[in-house]
């Protein structure tokens, strides 16, 4: 009998917790409101099932708990009831799956004309690369990676020379423009995750993965790594700043291109070799 009351309290408590607890999703900052809608729909359908099944269980326990001289009813099965329940459940499943697949199709279909840029993950930091004036990212290969070419850009590819490189700085993106994130990793799996964007995707060495969003409000948001990537996983953080297009363009123009950073590195290397013939500072 106590168990029936406790089950009812668990149901009431769970629904109450859902409604009033302070822990809920972050205010959205991208176009993926449809994902939130699908989650809400799923909460509604499964919530009804949760409450109905458990309250019915509690009712059965109260109504049919053992009494002296009482005997259970004998009924092996009821095809009719089972078919009804299958059909109802199937309808519920279809009601969740259909919008889910519809939104998934949108999620994986990048609109024409979306801006492209690259996120590079490595233990345990984020770097970013924009296509530069020609609008094209240069070819890359992790075999090209050196201290002076941390992105592994193919130096023979002219498209790569004007690529804008951002390292050790916040990521900036313009408001209201669809943007395709090209995701690349040098070492292990990472996952680019901004909760307010409602999007994430793993980054795999040797592959380029992607997702797309349209940022819908300005502000700065935390970037987290969401795929265990070694002992520094929890410290692999970044900031993405969403700003008006003017401010974004100004910021971008202040970042070095690949050609500039290579030249700077070469000049630096020369200075170092002038300073010391045996490679050490005196």
């Amino acid at each position, binding site marked *: 009998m106590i168990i029936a009351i406790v089950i009812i309290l668990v149901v009431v408590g769970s629904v109450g917790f859902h409604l009033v607890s*302070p*822990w809920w999703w972050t205010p959205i900052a991208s176009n993926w409101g449809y994902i939130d809608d699908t989650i809400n729909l799923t909460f509604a359908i499964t919530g009804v099932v949760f409450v109905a099944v458990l309250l019915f269980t509690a009712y059965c326990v109260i109504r049919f708990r053992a009494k002296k001289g009482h005997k259970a009813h004998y009924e*092996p099965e009821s095809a009719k009831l089972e078919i009804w329940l299958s059909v109802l459940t199937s309808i519920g*499943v279809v009601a969740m799956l259909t919008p889910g697949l519809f939104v998934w199709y949108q999620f994986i279909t990048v609109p024409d004309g979306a801006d492209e840029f690259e996120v590079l993950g490595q233990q345990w930091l984020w770097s970013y690369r924009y296509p530069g004036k020609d609008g094209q990212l240069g070819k890359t290969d992790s075999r090209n990676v050196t201290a002076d070419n941390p992105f592994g850009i193919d130096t023979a590819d002219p498209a790569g020379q004007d690529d804008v490189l951002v390292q050790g700085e916040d990521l900036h993106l313009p408001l209201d423009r669809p943007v395709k994130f090209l*995701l690349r990793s040098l070492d292990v799996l990472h996952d680019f995750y901004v909760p307010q964007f409602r999007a994430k995707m793993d980054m795999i060495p040797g592959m380029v993965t992607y997702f797309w969003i349209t940022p819908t409000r300005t502000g700065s948001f935390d970037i987290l790594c969401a795929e265990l990537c070694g002992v520094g996983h929890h410290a692999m953080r970044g900031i993405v700043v969403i700003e008006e297009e003017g401010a974004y363009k100004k910021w971008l123009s202040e970042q070095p291109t690949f050609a500039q950073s290579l030249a700077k590195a070469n000049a630096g290397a020369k200075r170092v070799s002038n300073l010391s013939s045996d490679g050490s500072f005196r």
Partner: protein
Amino acid sequence: MADVTNRDIDYVAPAEVEEMELYHAHSWITKYVFCQDAKVIAIQYSLTAVAIGLVGLVLSWLMRLQLGFPELFSFIDAEDYYQFITMHGMIMVVYLLTALFLGGFGNYFIPLMVGARDMVFPYVNMLSFWVYLIAVVVLVASFFVEGGPTGAGWTLYPPQTILSGTPGSDGGIVLMLVSLALFIVGFTMGGLNYVVTVLQGRTRGMTLMRMPLTIWGIFIATVLALLAFPALFVGAVMMLFDKLLGTSFFMPAIVELGEQLSYGGGSPLLFQHLFWFFGHPEVYIVALPAFGIVSDLISVHARKNIFGYRMMVWALVAIGGLSFIVWAHHMYVSGMNPYFGFFFATTTLIIAVPTALKVYNWVLTLWRGNIQLTLPMLFALAFIVTFVNGGITGLFLGNVVVDVPLSDTMFVVAHFHMVMGVAPLLVIFGAIYHWYPKITGRMLNEGMGQFHFWVSFLGAYAIFFPLHYLGLMGVPRRYYEMGEISFIPESVGTLNAFVTVMTLIVGFSQVVFLFNMVWSLFYGKKADPNPWKATTLEWQTPETPPGHGNFGKELPIVYRWAYDYSVPGAKDDFIPQNVPPSQVSGKKKAPARRRKRK
């Protein structure tokens, strides 16, 4: 047709042999150590699983201490934390739950419940346990090698698993992979036994559709395990080669901390497919025995036949089959071809239908029952609560686009703990309270049992229910510490501290449970051979606990299904499976039953 019988040969009388020759133990060693009796092997399996499970429990305390009170415990650093979560996960899923359900319950109850004297291959069965024990020893050894056990997460995703940025990437990961391979070898020997015994060892009259659902659950789960574990075996061996021989099955070209490694051409995604081809059926390897056992607990203690037996059997078969084509729902954000999402989301949500039907049928079994609120029944009810909760959050994660914001967050942690941690464990507890009298001849102490039940059920629910909402907010899993994240309010820390305290309390109640098991062995109330008045064969043995050979001189003959409870016209409210129709008083058959026979 030619006459092939040679009529000239004299009649030869059949040799006078016993119905089945068993290897009876002749010494203490062969009776308690290298024993071929499935019941002893079951207890050996169970004790080993519980022992390593306690290690897993302590690891969960340590990780929760770090999460609940991040600054307080300076002896837990990031490496330790990742090692704790990895070993906790692997121990609980493989070495505790799989071993306990199949090696423990499977060994004890398959022969007893199908009316066999023992497993079909007792010697191989014994080997199965000893190989499992070696696997556990190798696993434990990884705690003591230099660098400690692996901290790659229980999913062991390459490339990080074998690279230096991950704790335990030297000795730890090698021992982990070797241990898994050994486990699979040991399991395969036991698993073949379970399958063959169910198919070949049943007593007369025990048709497949008369078997108790406990056996159906264990049987289907074993078939899944035999088909799924090889994928993990292959993955483990290939990864060992990548680690030890420098091959590149899973390793692409990698620049590690500025240094070019010599790997190239391998696919990290391939490992994920192999892992989850095993990993998803693994969920059902744990769940299906629980489904089966809980069906029997509910039926016995509600004094009512399980509702829709045939549907329950086919649902088990359907879930088992479907579980092989849903694996990539663990990989929606893995970077695999996004069009896989359509297929795997559809198959995953289809699996919800037979699963939901099972839930309905458990609840409908209570309907118009005569519900005894015994400890096994309480645990079964708690299972329904936690399983419904954990099952519906699966509909979130299975629906591909909903999974995108939720995957790799605490929502996932909460979901799988509720559905394949708490729910199956509650069934294990219920099953132990149910069958302890048969296994030991004594009842477990009721008071300690009540304490254990309420703390475990409500405590576990209080731990995992709120965690869903942290995940919804975006709190990631596998984070040693949150540090400063702007969207995470301080209240998250408070909730984490609460959860940690609950974890310690629930963990402590397990100590009470273990104490109860030992205490009752000596001081428990003497048990009736069939204290719950159940119909299945294990309760009809001449001895309690059953001796070697289970059934005395004559094997039982089965006349009916396992669920003749409260049959109209019968004197008692249960008719054991081995009672012939002629001995049922008031021979009037139930109308519903006659309809079924047609």
